């Protein structure tokens, strides 16, 4: 029996997470649980692509840090915008 290679496992995991996201899209309601799940999905899927598709774990540290930082910052922005939307609205209102 052929065993799945690492690339195939990562690909299947990404597809499974995407289908989980599709299910959430149809059933999810606004709130903290959905916000945390979406932030988690972005962080996990982003890291999977960066670490395994781009093989960035062996790359120059600056490249690695910027890419890892990007997929860490965006989920944090998702959480901040949900919990502190009024703060964001206040500081981005022109009077």
């Amino acid at each position, binding site marked *: 029996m052929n065993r799945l*290679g*690492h*690339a*195939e496992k*990562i*690909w299947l995991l*990404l*597809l499974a997470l*995407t*289908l989980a*996201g*599709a299910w*959430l*899209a*149809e059933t*999810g*309601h*606004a709130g903290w649980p*959905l*916000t945390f799940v*979406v932030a988690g*999905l*972005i962080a996990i*899927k*982003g890291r999977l*692509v*960066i670490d*395994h*598709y*781009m*093989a*960035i*774990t*062996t*790359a*120059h*540290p600056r*490249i690695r840090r*910027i*890419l890892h930082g*990007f*997929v860490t*910052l*965006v989920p944090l*922005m*998702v959480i*901040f*915008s949900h919990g502190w*939307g*009024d703060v*964001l*609205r206040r500081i*981005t*209102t022109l009077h």
Partner: protein
Amino acid sequence: MSQEMTAGLRAPEPIGESVPGNRGIWVGIFCVLVEFLLLFCVYFIAKAHHPAAFERGPDQLATVAGVTITLLLLTSGYCMVKAVAAIRRDARRTTLRWVLAALLLGLGYPCVKFFEIRWNVAHGIDGAAGIFYTVYYYLTLNHLVHVSWGLLGLAWVATRTALGVYSSRDYSGLEAAAMYWHGTDVLWLILFPFFYVLR
């Protein structure tokens, strides 16, 4: 860690020293990341000012289109992983097949987008349908533009692969195209939940 994993997914250079592809492509990738980070700020600011519109917005979009695009991009990206692994073994015909598969799957993106926009317009969802849809069109069409550059890059490296330009000793051009293509993957993995899932 299996040997296949090492051969297929990890660069052979010493840890901490390699620049996958070439330096030029990373300047481009980081510029795109900065651009989209600013666009994400636009999304969050618009959402903060119009929370009700962003809560209702995803209900009107065709989730199946967003999911299909995600599956196409992830599978196309997987093909490029296999293409890079194949050229490291000097398996040039196999490399060409994987690159062509990546290109064909990637071309599915604009096709799905075409039908999605046609469906949207038929249901009254155009750029003036509300703030959520304005931001949705602005960000997703911007991403489509970057995907188009990626597709042109894949067509270019497919041609050069067919011409036998790349080998296990020099495949930086092929790897650079793969890096850019994976970069567009990462951005779509963020855009998809922003417009189809998050409320």
